[in-house]
């Protein structure tokens, strides 16, 4: 399109803006964007980074003490719980979301179910936080609908040791936005699986297992891994759902940071900043791991 238009417009346009002026002045066009990002994203983060290296009890002297303090049992437990919940819901959400997306796209279900599932997933993956926590209290809480139904059937989940306001309960709740997100981000990859590949491998006598092992999985693996890491990040940064559900009794990293903000629960500002940096670092490691894994599996795919 551009080349077709070029003969008419290029000469005039070229004389209007000489190449030399481009380099300096054209950067002015993106100044508002970067200014905004610096003011409301980079400065706040920089503030936390700097604070995490300062000793608030000792005239803000430069120190690594805050990071050393992270290795206390209560904080390690918060990280452990956050990571465990995120791992469990990312993997379970990825598996179930993948099966669900595969079922509606290639599983032979009526096509309208696919449209329905995509719309549901768009809604559910954005339905997090307070209303989600409440909805599950009404479902699986002490007097919830499902709890009551199971009681009538003679299954008393609360006397069997289940409690919604625990790690397991939170995992069940998180699944509500995890698997729909998986459906949304994995669907394009499943769409990319060509029917011809399956037919070709069957023509050459491949069993379904061999097809999955040598054809479908290598193609899908980068997307599945990437999506799983995205789900992990999605869950480890969540705060509202957990806070509403457990009222802060389940110590997640995000909940601890929130408590630090409303009152100095750690009795140490610098430790709060270090706690936040630890969370950012985990997210960063996840993204780097994702790009390495993806590049490796792509290279392996090509050869």
């Amino acid at each position, binding site marked *: 399109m551009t080349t077709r238009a070029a003969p008419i417009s290029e000469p005039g346009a070229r004389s209007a803006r000489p190449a030399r002026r481009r380099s300096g002045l054209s950067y002015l066009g993106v100044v508002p964007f970067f200014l905004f990002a610096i003011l409301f994203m980079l400065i706040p983060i920089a503030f936390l980074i700097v604070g995490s290296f300062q000793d608030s009890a000792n005239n803000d002297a430069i120190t690594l003490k805050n990071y050393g303090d992270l290795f206390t049992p209560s904080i390690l437990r918060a990280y452990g719980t956050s990571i465990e919940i995120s791992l469990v819901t990312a993997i379970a959400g990825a598996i179930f979301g993948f099966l669900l997306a595969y079922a509606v796209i290639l599983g032979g279900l009526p096509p309208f179910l696919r449209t329905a599932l995509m719309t549901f997933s768009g809604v559910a993956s954005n339905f*997090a936080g307070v209303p989600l926590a409440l909805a599950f209290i009404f479902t699986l809480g002490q007097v919830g609908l499902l709890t009551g139904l199971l009681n009538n059937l003679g299954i008393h989940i609360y006397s069997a040791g289940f409690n919604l306001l625990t790690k397991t309960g939170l995992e069940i709740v998180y699944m509500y936005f995890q698997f729909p997100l998986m459906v949304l981000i994995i669907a394009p990859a499943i769409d990319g699986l060509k029917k011809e590949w399956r037919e070709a491998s069957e023509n050459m006598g491949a069993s379904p297992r061999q097809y999955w092992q040598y054809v479908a999985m290598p193609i899908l693996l980068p997307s599945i891994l990437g999506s799983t890491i995205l789900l992990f990040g999605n869950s480890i940064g969540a705060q509202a759902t957990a806070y509403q559900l457990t009222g802060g009794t389940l110590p997640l990293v995000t909940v601890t940071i929130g408590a630090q903000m409303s009152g100095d629960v750690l009795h140490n500002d610098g430790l709060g900043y270090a706690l936040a940096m630890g969370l950012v670092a985990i997210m960063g490691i996840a993204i780097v791991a994702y790009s390495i894994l993806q590049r490796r599996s792509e290279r392996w795919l090509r050869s």
Partner: protein
Amino acid sequence: MTNVGIGARAPGALESIQGSAQDRRRPVRFGRIWPWVVFIAGFVYFFLPLVATLEFSLRARPAGAAYTNVLKDPQFSGTLLYSFVVGVITIIVSIAIIVPTAYWVRLRLPRIRPLVEFVTLMPFVIPPVILVFGLIRSYSGAPFHLTNVSFGSDLLLVAAYTVLSFPYMYRAVDTGLRSIDVRTLTEAAQSMGAGWGRILLQVILPNLRVSLLSGAFLTLAIVIGEYTIASFLIGQKAFGPYLSHLGQNKSYEPAAVSLISFGLTWAAMGVIALLGRSAQGRRGGIQVAGGH
């Protein structure tokens, strides 16, 4: 389905096809059942909490009291209106920042495109709780004292939500720009004497209608229900913190408000889906309209 494919592709092997069809009968039947099992499991998971919420909201006596109480509560309409206004302002600010940037990067500065993309994706790496932590600690003290006045907190809230909207807005706008011929439109407008402001407002923006609307509704859906940032910056003036407070103090009303909030998310997503569908059908027409 696979059998048909093989039959069509291997015309010389009729007798083996019949054999293979029989061999495969079992896995095919299993292959037809599991998608339904998975789908029904997902369906139940999706709707059971909603049904439970509805059922719980209807337990209030007299019937429907939860809903009438909520609608009568001035805090309900007040917080909802506040969050809606914040959402609309966020959308305007976000569009005002992202559209010129995405346009300019596409037209003149493709070199810095990776950097701009990286910055717009950063909110995915920074959890909201950390963003608001940093914002409060940076701007609540000297010399800004922004959180001492309610206008300052509102300002920070809009700023935080604008940052949150960057990934969605940039992707929506960039996809929209890809589908129109930015360079030709710009040069056509320039050759007719239009300045940059006029090009952006009267040529580029109308062409991005559909992308902007889908980005806008997604932003609105996120902002209206948002809890973490709102609760630390402004407390119960916003809808999310109000709902949370309600959930801790009332029994049936929170169920009613949760359902209403879910309905709002649903409506926003429905509009986005509709927009997406109409965009596919009308893309060519839209571009022509912008070129006039």
